[in-house]
């Protein structure tokens, strides 16, 4: 080594070696010891609980495992989206429950997003009365327990008169303590085909819109989308429907004896659950939307106004797309909440997964399996919503160079 290099103080001392020393002063050793202690403690507690459980199950002669799923359920379910009879297996009963949960969650998410956005915008409206009413709505519904609201709506539904004195607000729509009855078209294969055609039309329109945008980027002119959209969204389903014979009969509810015949029904349980969930969650979503709009700089409103846009256009074209970036993350947790809160259905007798799993575990005594199923279902739904919303969030995030 050359002389001047040794004179340089940087070379005078060797850098401390980052080796492992078996000493309490070494942070690595300390952290390893602590982790072993904590893992050991948690492991011991888990082992203790599991061994207790095993012993208890043995004493009570409860067989573990999911074999019970293939047994006959014998449990009646009032509303099922797939064919179901009490003679079916527990597995199918649970599947019906999962579908019922998903049904209320999906419809609830859509409706509460719409209502919440409207209320959130209304709270910022220039109209004083509208803004105040929106504020009262939010403050009132946010500060009452959801379960209380569900019980309230359910009590209100049950307070309706019986079928023979049913309230008839218009047409052949009947409100009674058996639920809401309304006319519905008699479903035939042609309708299913038309619905599929509509879905295909939506997909085609989206693809077309993308191609047109690409064309606009390339050439500067954008072909008109709406004639194509009209043809694909209205023309295609209508053509399919007409080709298949254009069946159209309305199935209206009629009072026969003590109950209604025909028509479609919304049960009081489902109506109360959906109403409670949507009104409650919309109050939270309204606050998220309001905060998101307020987070957009005032200059954006002013600049949009200077371009001559009306207030509605300012909101729709300039403010909301920017507010969306602030809104999406808290909105995700509201969607998760509505899904988890749908489990309160068990209190008013709507048969969702919690209700059916609870009945199952009471009938079979398979407590651990029943609760494991509930948790697994909700974890799966929660994770799926999280993943989708994260993907959407990344998609609309500000594209920075």
């Amino acid at each position, binding site marked *: 080594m050359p002389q001047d290099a040794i004179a340089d103080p940087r070379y005078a001392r060797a850098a401390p070696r980052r080796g492992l020393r078996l000493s309490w002063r070494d*942070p690595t050793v300390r*952290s390893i010891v*602590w*982790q072993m202690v*904590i*893992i050991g403690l*948690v492991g011991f507690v888990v082992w203790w*609980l599991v061994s*207790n*459980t095993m*012993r*208890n*199950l043995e*004493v009570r002669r409860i067989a573990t495992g999911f074999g019970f799923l293939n047994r006959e359920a014998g449990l009646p379910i009032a509303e099922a989206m797939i064919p179901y009879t009490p003679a079916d297996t527990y597995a199918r009963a649970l599947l019906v429950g999962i579908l019922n949960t998903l049904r209320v969650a999906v419809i609830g998410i859509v409706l509460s997003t719409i209502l919440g956005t409207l209320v959130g915008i209304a709270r910022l409206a*220039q*109209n*004083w*009365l*509208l803004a105040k*009413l929106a504020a009262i709505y939010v*403050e*009132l519904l*946010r*500060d*009452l*327990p*959801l*379960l*209380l609201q569900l*019980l*309230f709506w359910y*009590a*209100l539904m*049950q*307070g309706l008169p019986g079928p023979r004195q049913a309230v008839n607000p218009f047409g052949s729509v009947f409100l009674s303590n058996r639920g809401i009855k309304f006319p519905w078209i008699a479903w035939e294969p042609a309708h299913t085909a038309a619905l599929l055609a509509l879905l295909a039309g939506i997909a085609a329109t989206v693809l077309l819109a993308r191609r047109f945008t690409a064309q606009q980027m390339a050439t500067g002119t954008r072909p008109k989308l709406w004639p194509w959209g009209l043809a694909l969204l209205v023309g295609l389903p209508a053509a399919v429907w007409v080709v298949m014979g254009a069946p159209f009969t309305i199935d209206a509810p009629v009072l026969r004896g003590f109950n209604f015949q025909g028509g479609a029904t919304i049960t009081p349980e489902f109506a109360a659950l959906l109403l409670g969930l949507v009104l409650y969650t919309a109050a939270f979503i309204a606050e998220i939307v309001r905060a998101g709009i307020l987070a957009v700089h005032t200059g954006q409103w002013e600049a949009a106004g200077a371009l001559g846009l009306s207030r509605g256009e300012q909101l729709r074209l300039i403010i909301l797309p920017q507010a969306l970036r602030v809104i999406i993350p808290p909105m995700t947790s509201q969607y998760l909440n509505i899904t*988890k*809160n749908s*489990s*309160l259905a*068990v*209190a008013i007798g709507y048969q969702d997964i*919690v209700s059916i799993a*609870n009945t199952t*575990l009471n009938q079979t005594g398979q*407590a*651990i399996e029943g*609760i494991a199923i*509930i*948790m697994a279902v*909700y*974890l799966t739904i*929660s*994770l799926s919503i999280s993943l989708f919303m994260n993907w959407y969030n990344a998609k609309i995030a500000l594209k920075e160079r």
Partner: protein
Amino acid sequence: MTSSPAQSATIGANGMPVPAEEPRRPPVLSVGPLGWLRANLFSSWLNTAVTLVLAYVVISWALGLISWGVINAVWDVPGTGAQVDTSACRAVRGEGACWALIGEKYRFILFGLYPFDEQWRPALVVVIFVALYVVSAMRRFWNRWLGLVWMAALTVIGVLMWGGVFGLRFVEQERWGGLPITLILSTFGIALAFPLSILVALGRRQTSMPAVKALCVVYIELIRGVPLISLLFMASVMFPLFLPEGMNIDKLLRAQVAIILFAAAYLAEVVRGGLQALPKGQYEAADALGLSYWQKTGFIVLPQALRLVIPPLVNTFIGMFKDTSLVLIIGIFDLLNTAKTSIIEPAWQGFGIEAYLFVSAIYFVFCFAMSKYSQDLEAEFNRHRRR
């Protein structure tokens, strides 16, 4: 002193006096109450239409509510207990409220099956709880004595509820119910979940201890991924299987444990937000002073991080207060369950709306007070940011 406009106007530009002019007022329609009305309610055709429709709806609803809740309401019915005669209420079903239900049952709704002669004890407990909340909300009492006050108050509450000492009659826990149960579940839930949540939040930020971090992440995500009901079911049907034979914990305590575990996961995420929001320089400065991990956390990090997240913490507290009502589903007699049970007798069946409105008012008072408090705190903490 500057001259008034009237005086300065007396000499014109050419030096000639001009007649004094009255100071001009703004148009009548743009100031005062009329101006306010025009700007806020009738600024455009659309706005006017919205105002008129809403005003019609609000007024007709308000009139309907007054006639249902006051004018046509039944305030008293003859008889009491099993001999009560509710035909007067049945007669006005749908047109008038039956407040007689509340008059008859308010003691049951508030205190459940607690012995009737001893109900001053749960009433006092409620008062102590409220006093405790008020004291804790005042910033001048945020010091080390607050912890002692809490411990003393909770001890007194335990003594009052159970009794058995100081000449108080012993009341077994199965007979507790109503508002004290709701307050006990939420207060103990939050008081015990909070320290746990701080530990979990700190654990989740331990990059040097991957095992601890993984444990905390799994705990938080697992609990936040499932509904509270599934935890309560677990507490009510699975917990007895977890314990060795002969060892039994009562239902209220099991539900309390479930609520604590649930609340801690949510609070931990709030606390973690505060820990992340703290500038890195604070951590580095504390390290530079040679503080140990716990000194750094206790003296530097937590006091600042927790202050940052007080508003969301209070919001989580409100959520937990409301969520304690879920214990109804596993059959614990909290405030909501006593209201639900109060209308189970045939005489009172069908008057659920009145009972639920009564407990709504109680829940609303507690939650609204907390949410106003959190909003005020937030405004105060953000004062330096406002222009």
